[in-house]
């Protein structure tokens, strides 16, 4: 029997290996989709269900500040919510990996350790794109339309994915800190009040004073308002600085979150060997 040894990394093949490792870790996540199609389907259907509930159960009683159709107001908000809720998916998956010990096996193999996190984020971003497409389809089905240019709409989608990317790294960071399923559950509960105290479902102006201020400055409000503007949907505007500079904040907030979450997550991941 011949002995099978792991090939050594030759000089200059660093990037190639890193790409290969990252792709293999991404493939692993895609294989999970194929293995658990129902879980994927439920994850993708949940926001559609929320959209339908809010559009038809509450929508009749909702009034958009400055006038306009509530469905037109709601769809961009739901897109934002879908991106934000991605945080818990990322966090849960990472916590599970850490708990089963499979991450230890990866770390004991001659692969690029960062590929573990890169694979996770590429797969989650792919899922988010699919989720966005489905939600846009659902929005069109219930009568939502975008009125601006195609380029503006694309810019809106870009803002949504930027938000998702920042939430993703928050999820990775929290997943690395949490380590335990109980804490994942706490985050799963907390995302509700945090996302609802924003301009996702209603205008902050309609809320009690303190909550209204919180909602105005909520990062999700910035993205929701900016996306509404780019799609040409109603509900844009408001007297506050935050509402007037929604585009700026929709870029600045996620970048600020990333500037904290990314290095913290990276340090935490390296710190697994401490």
């Amino acid at each position, binding site marked *: 029997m011949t002995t*099978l*040894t*792991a090939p*050594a990394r030759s000089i200059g093949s660093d990037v190639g*290996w890193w790409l290969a490792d990252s792709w*293999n870790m991404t493939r692993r996540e895609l294989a999970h989709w194929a293995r658990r199609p129902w879980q994927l389907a439920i994850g993708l259907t949940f926001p559609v269900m929320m959209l339908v509930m809010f559009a038809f159960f509450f929508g009749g009683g909702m009034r958009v500040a400055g006038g306009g159709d509530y469905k037109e107001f709601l769809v961009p908000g739901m897109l934002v919510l879908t991106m934000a809720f991605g945080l818990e998916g990322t966090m849960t998956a990472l916590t599970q990996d850490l708990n*089963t010990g499979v991450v230890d096996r990866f770390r004991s193999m*001659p692969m690029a350790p960062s590929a573990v996190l890169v694979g996770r984020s590429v797969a989650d971003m792919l899922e988010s794109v699919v989720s966005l497409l489905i939600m846009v389809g659902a929005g069109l089905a219930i009568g939502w339309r975008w009125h601006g240019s195609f380029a503006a709409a694309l810019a809106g989608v870009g803002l949504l994915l930027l938000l998702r990317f920042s939430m993703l790294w928050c999820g990775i960071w929290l997943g690395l800190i949490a380590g335990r399923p109980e804490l994942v559950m706490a985050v799963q509960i907390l995302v509700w009040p945090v996302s609802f105290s924003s301009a996702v479902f209603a205008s902050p102006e309609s809320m009690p004073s303190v909550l209204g201020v919180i909602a105005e400055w909520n990062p999700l409000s910035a993205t929701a308002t900016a996306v509404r503007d780019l799609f040409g949907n109603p509900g844009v505007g408001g007297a506050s600085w935050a509402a007037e500079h929604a585009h700026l904040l929709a870029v600045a907030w996620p970048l600020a979150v990333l500037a904290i979450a990314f290095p913290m997550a990276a340090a935490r991941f390296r710190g*697994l060997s401490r």
Partner: protein
Amino acid sequence: MAGHELAIVAEGLEKSYREKKALDGLSMTVPSGTVHGVLGPNGAGKTTFVRTLATLLRVKAGRAEVAGIDVRRHPEEVRRRIGLLGQHAALDEDLSGRQNLDLFGRLYHLGTRRAAARADELLERFGLTDTGRRPVKAYSGGMRRRLDLAASFIIDPQVLFLDEPTAGLDPRGRSEVWNAVRSLVGGGTTVLLTTQYLEEADQLADRISLIDHGRVIADGTADQLKAKVGGDRIDVVVRTAGQLQAAAAVLAGVSGGAVDVDEDTRRISAPVADRMTALNHLVRALHDAGIEAEDLAVRRPTLDEVFMRLTGDGGGRPSGVREEESV
């Protein structure tokens, strides 16, 4: 690549978690091609030691080499040469057995085709061909352990770390793992095995290190360690509990060492220097004292006794067994 005489060298490893010292100046060497048992109770530092050697943990002080390579300075080179079986199955539960092995093969950079071929080969070798396409979460405990073991053989490791490989397995699963370990050593792989089971170390290991509180308290072959607690022992079971103390006094006179007394089984036990002389004297002395023995036997001490004695942990045993040296 092979040919390092020492597969593992550890010198003065230190590691603390908050106040608790997990490794407290641990040193150990393991010659290539041998099975080395690391024996110790829960919390002795076994897992911390293995994780340090397998590049998963960085120690505060000390130096470690695996296959002749410094663990801290060249972790990736070490990773190319080791296999690791942790305490808990390190597998992707949602993927099939085959998908797991195929993924690991790719991450070892074997290339697509070789990774797939290796996955099939390992499934066959570990008797998992039939279940290779089922998700791991549907596997039994023993099958999972076998797949986990197969995953430590994606490459043929120069050094294999087994951290409590049979914890939680039924006797059948345990003997499966033991057989796998024995077959490996033939291939020249060095195995570092941690265990809480004395029997397991006795069965598998060429040499054994006893560790407690993060340091080695004794090492040697199983026989050498047993000799440390005073060579042969004589066990006597008396017919009635009332004669226990009298019999213990007689045995103490013959042995000269400490006598263990177990009231429940009416058994007394003590180390002896010369087994035949001691046996002769004891039979006569018991007879003279009018003590009826139900059973009488000369035996080697078990590793259990070695361990209890060296750690100073009586573990519910009666006092009087604590004396260090006997004979």
